């Protein structure tokens, strides 16, 4: 029933466009161009790093906000406004509704990240053109480094994980609580590695096991952040990108499965 999923997804995307979500891209562009102008006063080579850092950081912050704030409303809003009643009497299965919602936001995020990546390359290109000696000065990594794409790809998969978490909460909880939980999990996810080694810092064995259990249950988001490595020209292998993406997609898949289970058990009256 891919057609139904596609229709639901398309309308999530359409809603985000009509609600002017993509306007954040204008803000992003202004930020990048403004920053490149200001930072242009710094030493050649340093400015390239800062622009890359800033571009990747801004992409991840903007993406995170979109994923969380649209994600937590995906299902909740339809239930709250009762539009879901009218949709579920149509030949739409509940899993198609959930998967469609997820893919719709995934599409919105894909467009966002793609445009941001293009904007970052455009700014870097502009800088190279304005300062002909820049290519030689940027010693650690080339100015128009294709590695940046790996950083964007991992950022995107990470946002899919965040979206799936937000969507899961959205199936049974209001937006405030869901947003708080999702942001909480995002932050925890970045310090998750500490939990794996929890047993070496605490004496109690039970606490160590609990740490391990949480480590596997909670999303592990730190590996998705390769900004520093890419900016400083350290290699990020394709295998690493593939494995990390695989983990992210599996995690997102599990969250969506949970969301489908919760949503299918809900009785709308």
């Amino acid at each position, binding site marked *: 029933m891919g*057609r*139904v999923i596609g*229709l639901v997804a398309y*309308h999530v995307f*359409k*809603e985000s466009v*009509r*609600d002017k979500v993509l306007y954040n891209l204008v803000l992003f562009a202004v930020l990048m161009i403004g920053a490149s102008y200001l930072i242009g006063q710094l030493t050649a080579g340093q400015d390239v790093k800062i622009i890359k850092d800033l571009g990747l950081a801004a992409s991840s912050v903007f993406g995170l906000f979109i994923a969380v704030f649209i994600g937590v409303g995906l299902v909740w809003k339809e239930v709250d*406004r*009762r*539009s879901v*009643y*009218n*949709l579920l*009497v*149509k*030949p*739409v*299965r509940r899993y198609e509704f959930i998967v469609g919602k997820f893919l719709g936001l995934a599409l919105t995020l894909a467009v966002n990240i793609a445009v941001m990546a293009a904007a970052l390359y455009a700014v870097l290109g502009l800088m190279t053109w304005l300062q002909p000696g820049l290519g030689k000065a940027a010693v650690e990594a080339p100015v128009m480094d294709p590695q940046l794409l790996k950083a964007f790809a991992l950022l995107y998969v990470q946002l899919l994980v965040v979206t799936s978490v937000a969507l899961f909460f959205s199936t049974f909880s209001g937006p405030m609580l869901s947003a708080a939980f999702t942001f909480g999990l995002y932050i925890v996810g970045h310090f998750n590695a500490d939990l794996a080694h929890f047993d070496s810092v605490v004496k109690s064995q039970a606490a160590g096991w609990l740490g391990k259990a949480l480590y596997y249950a909670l999303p592990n988001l730190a590996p998705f952040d390769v900004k520093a490595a890419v900016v400083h020209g350290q290699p990020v292998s394709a295998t690493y990108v593939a494995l990390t993406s695989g983990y992210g997609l599996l995690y997102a898949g599990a969250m969506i499965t949970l969301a489908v289970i919760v949503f299918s058990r809900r009785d709308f009256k």
Partner: protein
Amino acid sequence: MLGKPPGHPDVRRRVGYLPEAPYFYDYLSAEELLNYFAGLFGLRGAARTARVSSLLDRVGIAGERRLPLRKFSKGMLQRVGLAQALLNEPELVFLDEPMSGLDPLGRRDVRALILELRDRGCTVFFSSHILSDAEALCSRVAIVVGGQLVTSGRLSDILAFEVSGWELVMTDLQPAALESLGSAARKVTRISEGRYTIEVGPEAEPERLVGGLRSRGGRFVSLNPVRTTLEDYFVQQVEARKTAPPAGRVMPEG
């Protein structure tokens, strides 16, 4: 339902539904919304376009088809709701309060639409507080009081459509003429000078009564049979249940 379990997609393909307070996606226009839902029913291409435009025309919002739904009034949303309930040419339609939010013209349109659906062989199941609509449209009704089904059946069986009396209006009646009625008159109401409404029981022969009054100088205005209405029946049913909360509703089938 329709020979399958209620939630089955094949059933949903053959059923239409209008929710009580239709909220649709207000970022869409009426046309886009109908296209979306038509797509969910598997309609596509020219067939979809044709179905959507004919329904927009049918419910009378063709002129506003490109307007975003957030600008629609309650009555217009109700019309969109009706249109989307009929996208799949259903065999069975559930309408929750189809008349609410509509002006008198809109109500007349909806009544005509329901009768049209009936003529096409579609079963219409609707709920309403407006009993005269139910009485005018339905072949079978059910009364629900406080969430409990009180009664159901054919309207003709419930009301038995018997004449429970006559309501006679005459003018230029002298007091003597009124006195001549004696115990035949159940109730006499004075409307203006010499003009009276006289209610008589079913056993009275109205022709003879009118003749008698005319011979005493009265002039005949009108004579109407008094029938039990659905409203009377409804009130009777509700009052029969002492514990019942005030809000009841009729769920008729057209």
